[in-house]
């Protein structure tokens, strides 16, 4: 048992922290609000090897475990980075597990081309509101018993949204079928779990930073002649918020480890971590926003960026109420009455 990053992982974290500090400053996040994507930052990310880091070595990937991807995902959250790192990582791993010889694979490993996956059920040959759908070169969707890959759609248009995400519908007309059958659908489900677990880690990073922003503000803002950080009303709100965020830190990293180790608990822990982290991140950013007073909802202040993403990022998966029912079916018995 070792519940901290080891020395190799700390070194990786240092490298990527420098990357995000220089390429995903809050100014850059603001500049890319209308596209939800920072092209230049992605170009730099390609140079780090991150897009292919968690792909198998024998096809040219970095061969790193999912836990290494989680180190980067945490920073994606902390910096609210406008980069489709998680979608790309998960979708490329899915394609690599199904058709490692696919023509697109080399460009996905390098990051020259961006992949994503449709998290919503598909209907009428369309994948709705695909994460990164406005910028992805390739989108993998599950259509009944088939996994299809849609690429090269020029008619994609971004739909403006709460969290400045590059969301778009994607047509599945003419999409290539890459795999079919129960095992393929299982793989897709596994990819969804990986997305959930990494998103839970990212939301943890986001929540932690949201608390930091609020606490820093509370240490410089005076009202009634004292620092507002000296009021217990704020202190207790911050304490509850960081407790939720720390809880989601341990649960989400445990979920990533469980998936990496192919544990039987992987799927349910990923769903649980995702649901918990979603609420913890929103609670944390809502508390921090509240303690900013009026500045909290002013565009000029950063906390509103976190608040909007804390809700928007996880909602790409769909109504959490539906996800609670899915997890219930994994964990709970049903009644004896027909």
């Amino acid at each position, binding site marked *: 048992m070792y519940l901290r990053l080891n020395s190799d992982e700390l070194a990786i974290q240092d490298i990527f922290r420098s990357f995000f500090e220089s390429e995903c400053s809050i100014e850059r996040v603001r500049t890319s609000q209308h596209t939800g994507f920072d092209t230049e930052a992605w170009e730099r990310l390609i140079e780090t090897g991150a897009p292919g880091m968690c792909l198998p070595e024998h096809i040219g990937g970095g061969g790193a475990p999912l836990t290494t991807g989680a180190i980067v995902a945490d920073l994606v959250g902390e910096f609210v980075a406008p980069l489709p790192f998680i979608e790309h990582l998960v979708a490329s791993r899915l394609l690599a597990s199904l058709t490692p010889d696919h023509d697109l694979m080399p460009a996905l490993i390098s990051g020259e081309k961006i992949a994503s996956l449709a998290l919503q059920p598909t209907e009428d040959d369309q994948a709705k509101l695909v994460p990164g759908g406005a910028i992805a070169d390739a989108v993998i969707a599950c259509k009944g018993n088939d996994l299809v890959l849609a690429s090269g759609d020029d008619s994609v248009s971004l739909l403006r949204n709460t969290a400045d995400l590059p969301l778009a519908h994607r047509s599945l007309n003419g999409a290539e079928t890459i795999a079919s059958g129960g095992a393929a659908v299982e793989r897709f489900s596994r990819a969804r779990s990986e997305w959930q677990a990494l998103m839970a880690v990212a939301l943890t990073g986001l929540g932690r930073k949201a608390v930091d922003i609020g606490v820093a503000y509370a*240490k410089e803002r005076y009202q009634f002649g004292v620092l507002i950080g000296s009021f217990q009303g704020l202190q207790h709100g911050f304490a509850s918020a960081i407790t939720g965020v720390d809880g989601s830190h341990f649960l989400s990293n445990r979920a990533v480890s469980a998936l990496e180790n192919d544990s039987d608990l992987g799927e349910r822990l990923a769903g*649980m971590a995702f649901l918990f982290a979603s609420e913890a991140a929103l609670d944390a950013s809502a508390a921090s926003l509240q303690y900013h007073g009026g500045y909290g909802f002013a565009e000029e202040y950063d906390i509103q960026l976190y608040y909007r993403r804390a809700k928007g990022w996880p909602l790409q998966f769909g109504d959490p109420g539906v996800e609670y029912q899915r997890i*219930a079916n994994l964990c709970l018995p049903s009644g004896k009455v027909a």
Partner: protein
Amino acid sequence: MDWSFPPEAEEFRTEVRAFINEHLTDDVISSTHEGTIHNWDFHKKIADRGWLGGAVPSELGGGGKSALEMAVMIEELQLAGAPIDGMGVAIVVASVVLELGNDHLKETIVPKLLSGETLVSFGYTEPDSGSDVAAAQTRAVKDGEEWVINGQKMWTTMAHIADYVLLLTRTNTDVPKHKGLTFFIVPLETSGIEIQPVHTMGTERSNATFYDEVRIGDEWRIGDIDGGWEIMKAALKYERGIAGGQFPSPPLIDAFIEHAQKTERPDRSSIIDDPVVRERLVRSLIDVEVCRGFAYNTAFLASEGVMFGVEGSMTKLFASESYKKHSKWFLDMAGTEGLLYLGEEGAPVGGVIDEHFRHAPVTTIYGGTSEISRNLIAEGLLGLPRTR
């Protein structure tokens, strides 16, 4: 991160589970329903396995169970709903005495504690000092070779079955409050001590203890005169991870699932099939997994020899607050029948849901209130200014 326990801890988990299967009978669990939260037979069986002594740190002469093995034991006992308050007390007091006590205390008390024959009640809180524990006013005054003690303690739980009380007293009123405290381990049979029951909403019986011209020798003092705060810190140190409180909800969740699975609503639908019920159960199970993350983190820190503080407050805060929320949900979802007491006809799963509802508020108060926990997190982790 590596979330796996070492093989010896997993083997120990198997052993503890087998022990629970054999010895944690329904009779043991229901024995605590009469108010006394301790079961001597069960406690003695734990002691006979050597697990009380095993939990005492090996540098103090304990039996060398690792921090991770202890975490496994405490987790399993809590998941099963075993009465472990006495176990925590025995381990904590034995550890404190072995580290800081005199030979008399080591010889008189420690063997009996670790063999499961005696208990010590904690005498910290007073009518006018709860969270502000260092404001204790119970006086101890030296009279020749003896100490004379006068005062009153609240929440001396288990004092009516214990042989001793770990008593926090004031020996100096001319210095800041933390610097004028002295601890004693006082035999409860000493003349001048009166124990009165304090019955609680949660069915547990606690006690108020009164000290009227109680005379004891200096051999019963532990730690330096006016050095009591060091003993308090040591007790808190050994309490971490041992005192439990990380997994209050699982016995309630298990009981509710049993009830919901076999119980129909008036429209003949099964309670467990209700989507609202299912969402709340999943939320509760998620909270338990969060508790597991916190508990394993503190076990990991202990195994690395790290003295943790805020992490323990966070664990306790989250576990007790979520438990209180669960107990409210499950009582609602058990319907009006959920209100029925233990043993009443028609009470769901024998009435334990109501029992949890009445017990849960105890857990957000004792051992440090949620408000004190939040203060400690705000100050210790977030660096916000101290407000007390």
